[in-house]
């Protein structure tokens, strides 16, 4: 469990990054912090492994104030995956994945055995083990980043826009695989993104932040879509734009879901149609 208690972060010079933030993240839950740049979402996440220390307030992991923990040891116990993977360019794929276990004093041999298993888990060919990061595609680098984050088998996985630098198709694959992994691994995931679609896909709960790190709404994707707290949230999730404002049109005896611009988004299946009942009978 991760707790933020009245966290405030002011930088020297008076920049207020976080005013007053509180949140409890349950174990095995995935929470996505989403907001535009300048919303302080990355700052919040980096407070968990003490890359940033709050000016006031507490961050706790399983009840322990992180300020009382040795930062180096804390960081070795928390998985961290960052944008453009942050891999060490002078280390091979295998050595990158074994970084944290080796820092924790696990023998190189054991760490490597585990790294090979992890490469398989995240869908990397074994032949890539001896390559350097610059020799990999963006998607492969991100997979290595995820494998490295998981290598020490941490309970907590922090992910800072981990799929931001890859093309949409690869991003989609990586997102699906992350969700697949999470079903088996049940880590506590804190995920930072500016992409609301990614947030709704990955988050059990989503925290929507305004600039200045003010919480606009916290809830499950369903809750937020069903009842946006205000205009900011509605506009942020796109409820007021075409892509999320869907209705059903009947074409050739089938229910076609159409967005506000009239673009077909999909077909309403029997299961969904039965639940939504009369919705299928009310074309625009």
């Amino acid at each position: 469990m991760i707790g933020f208690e009245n966290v405030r972060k002011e930088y020297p010079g008076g920049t207020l990054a976080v005013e007053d933030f509180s949140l409890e993240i349950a174990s095995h839950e995935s929470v996505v912090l989403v907001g535009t740049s300048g919303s302080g979402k990355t700052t919040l996440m980096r407070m968990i492994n003490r890359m940033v220390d709050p000016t006031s307030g507490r961050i706790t992991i399983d009840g322990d104030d992180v300020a009382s923990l040795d930062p180096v040891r804390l960081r070795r116990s928390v998985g961290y995956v960052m944008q453009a993977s942050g891999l060490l360019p002078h280390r091979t794929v295998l050595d990158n994945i074994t970084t944290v276990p080796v820092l924790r004093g696990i023998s190189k041999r054991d760490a490597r055995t585990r790294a090979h298993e992890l490469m398989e888990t995240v869908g990397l060919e074994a032949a890539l083990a001896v390559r350097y990061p610059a020799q990999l595609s963006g998607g492969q680098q991100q997979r290595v980043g995820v494998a490295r984050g998981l290598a020490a088998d941490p309970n907590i996985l922090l992910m800072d826009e981990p799929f931001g630098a890859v093309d949409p198709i690869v991003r989609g694959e990586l997102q699906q695989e992350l969700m697949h992994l999470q079903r088996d691994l049940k880590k506590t995931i804190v995920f930072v993104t500016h992409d609301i679609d990614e947030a709704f896909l990955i988050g059990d709960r989503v925290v929507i932040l305004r600039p200045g790190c003010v919480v606009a709404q916290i809830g499950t994707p369903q809750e937020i879509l069903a009842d946006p707290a205000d205009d900011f949230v509605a506009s942020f999730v796109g409820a007021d734009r075409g892509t999320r404002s869907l209705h059903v049109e009947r074409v050739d005896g089938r229910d076609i879901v159409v967005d506000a611009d009239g673009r077909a988004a999909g077909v309403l299946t029997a299961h969904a149609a039965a639940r939504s009942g009369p919705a299928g009978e009310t074309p625009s």
Partner: protein
Amino acid sequence: MSWVLENLDLIAARTGSHLLQALPPILVALALSLPLAKLANSQGWLRTGVTTTSGLLYAIPSLPLFVLLPGIIGTSVRSPLNIAIALSLYGLALMVPAASDAFRSVSRDVLSSATAQGYAPTARFFQVELPLAGPVLLAGVRVVAVSTISLVTVGGVLGVPSLGMLFVDGFRRGIIAEIAAGVVLTAVLAVLTDALLVLLGRALMPWTRQRSVRRP
């Protein structure tokens, strides 16, 4: 040519003492430049100051420096120590800005990511920052090595044994072969050292070799 064959022992001895004079300043310049560059990079104004000072230092003509140095540090005029100190200063003048650039060439994101993985500060410096600064550091060391090897010859004018002494002596006595031997061997020594450094760099920094084999 016969002069060369008759004086192989002398040439070998001069080459040996030339190398012995060149090596320590190169190593001293490298070793001292690392902490100085780190210090310079920590403050913007300090970096500007260090870069300017280095440039000025290198502008001091070498022969006067060799002559003046004994007066300043109290050594005898022919002491090899003068040469060693003067060459170390020239080496530093080249190496500190190079090292400063080298550390600045290391990606902040990679360093921050290393910290997030749990590298302690010292381990991060030696295992991440220093190796990643390696390619630019090496470029600096190559310039310092070649420049130092050629500057050692100036000591020959003062009577400190080196390959420089061969062409000083050759001029005085009108032996063309001796002048040529001094000049050619100095150049050969510089080129060989440079090649050795390149090979050393490839061995120590294998990741720089493979950049070109990029996968789509």
